[in-house]
């Protein structure tokens, strides 16, 4: 009996130990997790931001002053110490995020979350994310100084990781039950790839291929013109391009492959985009140029941005950094300010590959056979066996689609040609911008920047303003890469790149301002082939109209423009709808909604009903209009909003207006009414469940934790207006991820805010303390310290000392 009892209690003890020490499904190892001495309770604290810390390899002490926003102001004696300190301090506040984002870039999410991440990971591998990072690293190694700084940053991060014991790990590690691995220089390259994928990783070539085959060239061009009938490009229309004296690539003879493609990989979110602008001294109320930037990205906690001041005796910069990359990315220094918007361009093409046989060791090229190489991707999965995926590489790039991935043909595939694989030292330009003193320095700094192409806006204390559309762009023949290309035809290869000096740019234009909002970079007069690959058509016109509306602009005007909720899209369609729609048969409830939207002033303000009605109405109208393109058998896409509205208002009787499922022949005006009735029904349903459909409630903007499915670490229902295609581009999950305004006085005066907080720890008050002010359109003054002497704005100071 004794022994049985002993055995039972022994087994019970083991079972309890196991159950409390093991992650079971989504539940963390609960004993470990709730242990007050080592688990999550240890994260219930603000960060320690004073005292002394010993760091290996520093050459002199580094002073870090923190202000009340928890912004670190780093004062180092030289660049190597500076970037080491940047690595250490960034890791101190954002370690988990840095590692998670670079794992995501590399396609290593399954290592953390298990087999749910496998599709994501495999797609990342098939895109050649790791391959691209390797290429970048090779390029970076050509510049020993970049390598030295990358290594200093790496060492700083690793010093911080080494200082952690288990109880100090960020809470996400405890929830998911894993540990950080050492930082590497490749991780910085991976982070830059992550940005390249987000901002230059989209295309519709395969969908366009299907559509061209299905509807013919004339109909295709009607749906997807290279230029819309309105265009307010980044570089003013009157620009003289006669200095461009290189030959354009000639269009080759020969056919494009007419394949039917059934399924394509996930595309970046269409709401990724940005605004930036600058006014000259002459157009500024104070006589100093003023510059603004607001990158629209996924709204996440921890934020993609981390604000820092980075200072040595030689240079002093401040602004938004990307955890994982060195230097300030969008910011200012003593002499200049700069910011970026995404410069969309077709830098991703697909080539049809014909393999010689099923071994896939050779593919057809230039009348012969060319050898492939293989990159074996090892995808480790938490709690399951490792998956190996052999990705075939051609001279174009990885064969993303083959019989192992989204296709079933053993002897053919589609290879990706992508600027992300071209290699590039895209760290260096930012380090040089941090130190730049003039327009010439700025141009030199960005010269070698390749991807993701950006519209770099610039202003200086010397009074210059400028914008360069900078990236490495293929010099394409007209039409090249809009559709699937023939991978065996050398004429279909990218022939050359546009010489950097001929990238579109403007300095001190006559109109006294520069701006960009992801619109067309140029008009038709620019000699190189640029087609509309998703250019924005609304924000740019509102911004440029604003700057053309009066002579002088102040910082206050800039704030108002950031927070401008004018819905030009709705304003261009609704009056036409009201005019042409027959509303005599609407029910009284429908009529009430109709009158609500009719009295709307086209501003997407939080208390208004109009924006919600417009949103639902459009969401019904758009798929009703393009019902022709709903297909399970092949990948199709629908025209951009601008062209959709253009066709409805200019060709209301076009056959595309018809709803193919009905026997009646509908025109655009019928669609307005039908979609309105559906919208009214949905709104009434919504109202009965959720109450008043004012724009704040209906849109319900949120800032999610990076790990989806942790509402407790996220913020919901924020009181912010706007929407995609509006200058205040805040949709449900995307929007101004950083708002900055810099006046180029000496020293510059700057405002900045982002929807998050400096701390990555949900247990810190600094985790999300900017969110409320951000939502209501407030800014925080950025305290650009001019010397290392602490002022009354500094709440704590930490010193990093060289350890012996």
């Amino acid at each position, binding site marked *: 009996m*004794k*022994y049985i*009892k*002993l055995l039972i*209690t*022994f087994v*019970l*003890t083991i079972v*309890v*130990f196991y159950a*409390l*020490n093991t992650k079971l499904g989504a539940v963390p190892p*609960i*004993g*470990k997790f*709730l*242990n*007050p*001495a*080592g*688990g*999550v*309770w*240890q*994260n*219930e*604290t*603000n960060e320690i931001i004073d005292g002394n810390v010993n760091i290996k390899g520093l050459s002199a002490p580094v002073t870090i002053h923190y202000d009340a926003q928890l912004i670190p102001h780093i004062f180092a004696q030289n660049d190597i110490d500076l970037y080491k300190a940047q690595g250490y301090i960034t890791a101190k506040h954002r370690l988990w995020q840095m590692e998670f984002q670079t794992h995501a870039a590399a396609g290593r999410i399954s290592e953390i979350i298990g087999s749910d991440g496998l599709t994501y990971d495999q797609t990342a591998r098939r895109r050649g994310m790791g391959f691209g990072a390797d290429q970048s690293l090779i390029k970076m190694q050509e510049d020993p100084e970049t390598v030295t700084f990358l290594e200093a940053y790496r060492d700083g991060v690793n010093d911080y990781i080494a200082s952690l014991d*288990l109880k100090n790990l960020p*809470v996400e590690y405890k929830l998911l039950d894993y540990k950080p691995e050492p930082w590497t220089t490749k991780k910085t390259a991976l982070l830059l790839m992550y940005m390249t994928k987000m901002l230059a990783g989209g295309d519709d070539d395969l969908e366009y291929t299907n559509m061209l085959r299905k509807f013919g060239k004339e109909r295709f061009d009607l749906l997807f013109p290279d230029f819309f009938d309105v265009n307010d490009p980044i570089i003013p229309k009157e620009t003289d391009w006669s200095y461009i004296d290189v030959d354009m690539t000639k269009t080759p003879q020969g056919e494009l492959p007419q394949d039917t493609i059934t399924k394509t990989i996930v595309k970046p979110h269409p709401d990724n985009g940005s605004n930036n602008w600058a006014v000259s001294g002459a157009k500024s109320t104070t006589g100093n140029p003023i510059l603004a930037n607001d990158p629209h990205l996924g709204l996440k906690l921890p934020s993609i941005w981390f604000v820092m001041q980075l200072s040595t005796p030689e240079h002093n910069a401040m602004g938004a950094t990307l955890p994982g990359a060195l230097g300030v990315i969008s910011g200012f220094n003593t002499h200049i300010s700069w910011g970026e918007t995404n410069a969309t361009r077709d830098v991703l093409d697909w080539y049809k590959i014909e393999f010689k046989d099923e071994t896939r060791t050779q593919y057809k090229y230039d009348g012969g056979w060319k050898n492939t190489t293989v990159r074996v991707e090892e995808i480790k999965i938490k709690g399951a066996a490792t998956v190996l995926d052999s990705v075939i590489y051609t001279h174009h790039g990885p064969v993303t689609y083959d019989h192992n991935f989204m296709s079933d043909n053993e002897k053919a595939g589609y290879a990706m040609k992508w600027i992300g694989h071209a290699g590039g030292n895209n760290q260096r330009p930012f380090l040089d911008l941090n130190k730049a003193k003039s327009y010439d320095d700025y141009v030199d700094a960005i010269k070698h920047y390749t991807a993701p192409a950006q519209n770099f806006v610039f202003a200086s204390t010397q009074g210059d303003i400028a914008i360069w559309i900078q990236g490495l762009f293929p010099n394409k023949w007209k039409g090249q890469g809009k559709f699937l290309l023939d991978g065996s035809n050398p004429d279909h290869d990218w022939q050359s790149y546009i010489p950097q000096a001929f990238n579109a740019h403007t300095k001190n234009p006559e109109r006294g301002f520069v701006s960009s909002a992801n619109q067309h970079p140029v008009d038709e007069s620019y000699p190189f082939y640029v087609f509309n690959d998703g250019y924005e058509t609304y924000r740019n016109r509102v911004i440029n109209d604003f700057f053309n509306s009066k002579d002088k602009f102040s910082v206050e005007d800039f704030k108002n423009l950031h927070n401008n909720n004018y819905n030009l899209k709705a304003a261009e369609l609704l009056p036409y709808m009201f005019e042409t729609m027959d509303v005599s048969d609407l029910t009284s409830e429908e009529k009430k909604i109709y009158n609500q939207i009719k009295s709307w002033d086209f501003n997407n303000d939080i208390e208004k009903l109009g924006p919600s009605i417009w949103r639902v109405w459009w969401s019904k109208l758009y798929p009703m209009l393009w019902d022709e393109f709903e297909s399970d058998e092949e990948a199709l896409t629908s025209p951009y909003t601008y062209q959709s509205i253009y066709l409805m208002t200019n060709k209301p009787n076009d056959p595309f207006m018809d709803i193919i499922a009905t026997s009646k022949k509908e025109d655009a005006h019928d669609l307005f009414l039908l979609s309105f009735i559906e919208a009214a029904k949905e709104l009434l349903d919504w109202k009965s469940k959720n109450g008043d459909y004012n724009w704040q409630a209906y849109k319900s903007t949120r800032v999610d934790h990076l790990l989806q499915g*942790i*509402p*407790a*670490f996220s913020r919901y229902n924020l009181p912010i207006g706007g929407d995609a295609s509006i200058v205040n581009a805040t949709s449900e999950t995307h929007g101004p991820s950083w708002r900055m305004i810099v006046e180029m006085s000496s020293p510059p005066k700057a405002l900045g805010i982002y929807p998050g907080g400096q701390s990555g*720890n*949900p*247990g*810190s*008050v600094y*985790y999300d303390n900017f969110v409320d002010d951000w939502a209501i359109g407030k800014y925080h003054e950025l305290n650009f310290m001019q010397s290392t002497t602490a002022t009354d704005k500094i709440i704590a100071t930490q010193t990093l000392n060289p350890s012996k």
Partner: protein
Amino acid sequence: MIKKNIINFVVTIIIALILSQFLPWWSVMVAGFVSALFFSLKKAAVFFIPFFAIFCFWSIYAFIISNGNDFTLSKKISTLFTLGGNPYVLILVTGIIGGLAAGVSALFGKQLSGLVKR
């Protein structure tokens, strides 16, 4: 008997407190086990005295930490665990988990001590 209960209670907490400084969470299982070996109790007390000891240790410890930080994180973790966002419920759960671990290992300790004494 009450005296023995009190001794076991105090000794369990002291061992747990010391071991928690350098051992992982299962230090409370060691504490429950060791005190059961040396301060043998009777019947339900075998489980409930160490349970209550560690319940007090963990919940008071958790309370002190989170009270000092306005329960910022514990409210969120309580929401995450669908405990209604109430930090006190999370503190209670923490105490129960720790107590359970200590109580169960004490049962084993008690059986083993009976064997050794024989």
